[in-house]
């Protein structure tokens, strides 16, 4: 799939997301994350389309940029009364108190700060292979979050969509049966 096709599909999905957006007002955390990741996404598209090859310094800094951006968001937004970004990133399927979410948010911010720093150290000091290894081990962290999300959010959604489709199919079958039997 070409980058252009992928971008168009992505834009379409975002359009669907906009159309199906929840009626409730988004929290400050949500807005900040949307704006920050929108900017990061636009930047990613810019580099994919127009900058070949990537400057080496940018490649080294990339993971640090995203980790420290997250650290910044998770550190700045809660004191402003905008909720806890960690709640949006991890998913609010666990019924935890605000106090508990505060500590999770802090821990997550600290972890991202450390990962961003370690990335710089690994990029400059370690071998290229070790740096690659570090980056992939960080992705395991993301995978854990994805698995939680898959189990607690995506599967229930999939079940609900399947049931909806099943009902539609059953209704269509009954309708067609009546149509052909009469």
């Amino acid at each position, binding site marked *: 799939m070409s980058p252009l096709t992928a971008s168009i599909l*992505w834009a379409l*999905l*975002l359009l*669907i*997301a*906009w*159309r*199906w*957006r*929840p*009626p*409730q007002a988004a929290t400050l955390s949500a807005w900040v*994350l*949307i704006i920050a*990741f929108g900017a*990061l*996404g636009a930047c*990613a598209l810019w580099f994919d389309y127009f900058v070949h090859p990537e400057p080496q310094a940018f490649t080294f800094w*990339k*993971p640090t*940029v*995203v*980790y420290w951006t997250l650290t910044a968001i998770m550190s700045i937004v809660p004191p402003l009364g905008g909720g806890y970004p960690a709640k*949006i*990133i991890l*998913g*609010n*399927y*666990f*019924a*935890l*108190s605000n106090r*508990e979410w505060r500590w999770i948010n802090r821990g997550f911010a600290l972890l991202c700060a450390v990962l961003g720093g370690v990335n710089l150290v690994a990029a400059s000091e370690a071998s290229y292979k070790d740096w690659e290894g570090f*980056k992939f081990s*960080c*992705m395991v962290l*993301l995978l854990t979050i*994805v698995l939680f*999300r898959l189990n*607690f*959010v*995506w599967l*229930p*959604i999939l*079940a*609900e*969509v399947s*049931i*909806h489709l*099943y*009902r539609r199919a059953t209704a269509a079958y009954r309708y067609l049966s009546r149509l052909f039997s009469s």
Partner: protein
Amino acid sequence: MIPAERKPDHIAQLVWPGQRSELVTLAATGKSGGAGEIFSIEGRPEFVAKIYHATTSQAVLAKYRHKIQWMVEHKPALPEIPAEYQDIVQLAWPEALILRRSRFVGFAMRKITFDRTLELDYLLNRRQAAQEGFDADYGKLLTVCFNLASVINCLHERRIAIVDLKPMNVKVHKAELYVSILDCDGFHIDTEEFRHDAPQVTPEYLAPEFQDKAVTHPEAQDSFALATIIFRLLNYGIHPFTGVASDHNTYPLELAGRIKQGLYPYGKVAHESVRKVPASVHEAFPDDLRQLFDRAFAAPGYSRPSVREWVDVLSIYASKRSGQISPCEKGHLRFSDRPCPTCLREALIKGAEVRRRSFVARMQAAPARTLKYVRRTLRQTHSSPFQAALAQAQLFTFRQLAPPAPITTRNAIALEILWISGLLIGLWWAR
């Protein structure tokens, strides 16, 4: 132009026993089988002609001629039937050779009136039999079994065996209950002056010792096939080697494999690895019949009951005077002093129907139940006692928050699209 039915190909010579011959005209009936096509014979309405396909090689035709010639001259004596039923044909036995331009092309046999008969296959399903105008009960079925066994016994006495004995090859007279056996030209003949093999077999009715092998003892094969047919007739079409396996990995999918391994679950002693089909009524059969079935299916080939034994036992049940068949409270015929198989079957079917309806109701309610569960999961509004207890006790750090404003599935999908977009952007930056 010569009309189709008057073409020279349709003029044939019938050669009766004693070499008496006559010229006849054949007319196509539109019925054909694997070996030949059936024609009616003008001026001889009580006969039909079987003409072998034109593709049959001369060598094969020569063998057929040899066999049919012998059969025409050696018609076996069959069980006697009352004078008023003399028109019933118990065996579609070749009665005359048919020659065309002096070359053998087929044979003539007595016509079986299909209007008065139905295939034995239909009797394996009571509803199907009823649709064909045959109201099956145990009295009639046992009579049919007895008549079939009697005809086969007469053949065996002349050292003739059917080999490919199966319900499709047998017709039953609906009112008189006599049977007609078709495809006689495929029989095995082993007399002192003549011998001809029958290579055609049907695996579902083939004895275990002949599975994947040539049939070396045709009478033993007939005994096995007859026992299988009788079992199926009396047990609502259930094949004696249909069962429920405890280990599905080693249970053959096809009946032939189960026959070969002797996986017969209806014996008086239960089989170790196969259970009976729940709808089976074999336990309502009398002991002598069950012993015969056990010997036919669960014992080695040499102890299999002969057709003669079947005739002897079935003659008792087929005779009204024996008193071995009597009506139950509901008026169904059953084996005397045994539970009524018809009532047993009805109870089993009714139980199965109740279970089926309950299952269907559960299945129909399942989507709604699941939807409710999923919605509660999405909205975090589970009201299970476990969660309620957690919320009240405050024992752990997990507790229920005030339920958030309900969101629909579409809203949830929209949020997940945004989340996945963020994830992909994060991955691009982190890699």
